[in-house]
């Protein structure tokens, strides 16, 4: 089937979509957007997190057909013209990226958290990132990165 959706601000028409396939598969394999990662395909790890109509969701659990006519923002859409956002810079600066597999999902989740709550407490950060698993960092550097991004955004505003 064909689906038409807006991805990172651009209207996309995608043909040959299988009725049972996930939005994650369509993004990675049909739209050339491999930023969102596939690590579990069952909603457990959050590495496939994207915005769907403004809300972070696991794209592995959205049927591609359900995204027809909707608006999707992936991690690729969060850096304007190759410039990294404060959230992305903070992850680099704090060593919150090791193998990097969890990073795109964590960037989207952190971006959403800081939009809603610019100065989150530590428990609020943990709660907001509870759906994103990382096998490498032990999370402390990720916590550092979120705190740094929060401060950086505060200074910038």
């Amino acid at each position, binding site marked *: 089937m064909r689906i038409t959706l807006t991805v990172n601000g651009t209207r996309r028409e995608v043909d040959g979509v299988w*009725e049972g396939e996930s939005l994650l598969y369509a993004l990675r394999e049909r739209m050339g957007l491999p930023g969102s990662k596939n690590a579990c395909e069952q909603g457990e790890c959050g590495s496939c997190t994207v915005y769907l109509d403004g809300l972070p969701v696991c794209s592995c*659990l959205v049927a591609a057909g359900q995204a027809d006519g909707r608006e999707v923002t992936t991690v690729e859409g969060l850096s304007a013209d190759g410039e990294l956002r404060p959230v992305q810079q903070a992850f680099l600066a704090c060593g919150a990226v090791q193998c990097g597999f969890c990073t795109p999902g964590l960037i989207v989740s952190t971006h959403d958290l800081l939009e809603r709550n610019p100065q989150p407490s530590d428990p609020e950060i943990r709660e907001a990132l509870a759906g994103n698993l990382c096998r490498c960092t032990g999370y402390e550097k990720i916590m550092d990165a979120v705190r740094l991004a929060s401060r950086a955004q505060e200074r910038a505003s």
Partner: protein
Amino acid sequence: MEFLAPTTWADALAAKAACPGALPVTGGTDVLVEINFDRRRPPALLDLTRVAELRDWAPDRGRIRLGAAVTYSRVIDELATALPGLAMAARTIGSPQIRNRGTVGGNLGAASPAGDSHPPLLAADAVVEVASAARGVREVPVAQFYTGVKTNALAPDELIAAVLVAPPRGPQQFCKIGTRNAMVIAVSAFGFALHPDRRAVGTGIGSAAPTPRRAEAAAEFLAGELDAAGLWESRGELPDGLAREFGHRVRAAAAPIDDVRGSAAYRLHSLSVMARRAATWAWNDYRRAA
């Protein structure tokens, strides 16, 4: 596979009648897992996310009518006061991403004994509104909705339209045991409600029987003891040992199994502890509300 995407409730019911094998999909947090892992290949997916009638909630003749496709995130943000037990349960479900998609209708559709909506819906005496193109609307009391392990009372041509819940007349509680504070399927769960208007107690047991179920005898016992001691009116302290005895009786209503998440013995033990705590917390809230 076909992909059916009706935009009205009438079209959705017509599609289900024409193709009873079509698998409804709302948040997809159960359905997509099954498809991704090749556990299910339905002839068609019936996407319900475009049906506006399912996405809203509203007061309806003295009850809250919660559309089947309202997500957990919205239950938490919009219904914490109107559906307190359900909102407490919703806060424990999955992760933010799962709560942004997962729905109460989907939880009822899946009818897992571990579904977290069920204990609070049982405790609050909720009613499930189901509909078909051929026979129209029918209301099923939630306790009769669960018919077996992961099966429910829907006929092949029926869909879940909404859940109907009376606004709370007293405090509600929800407790859940799991290995961490997020992303856990309950080892066991318990929902509790005080209904002072009819001097009754509501209960719901999760993950400790083939279906979600009530602890009827325990609820009657507690309500009767409160009545006998005039406590519904006086709002006095709970007599020593009453909450504990209630916990024991709740445990007696369960029929759990051993599985990877926990042993039957632990489920029974944790249920009696949760029931004691939930009753105590709710009663303390009731006393404070005086």
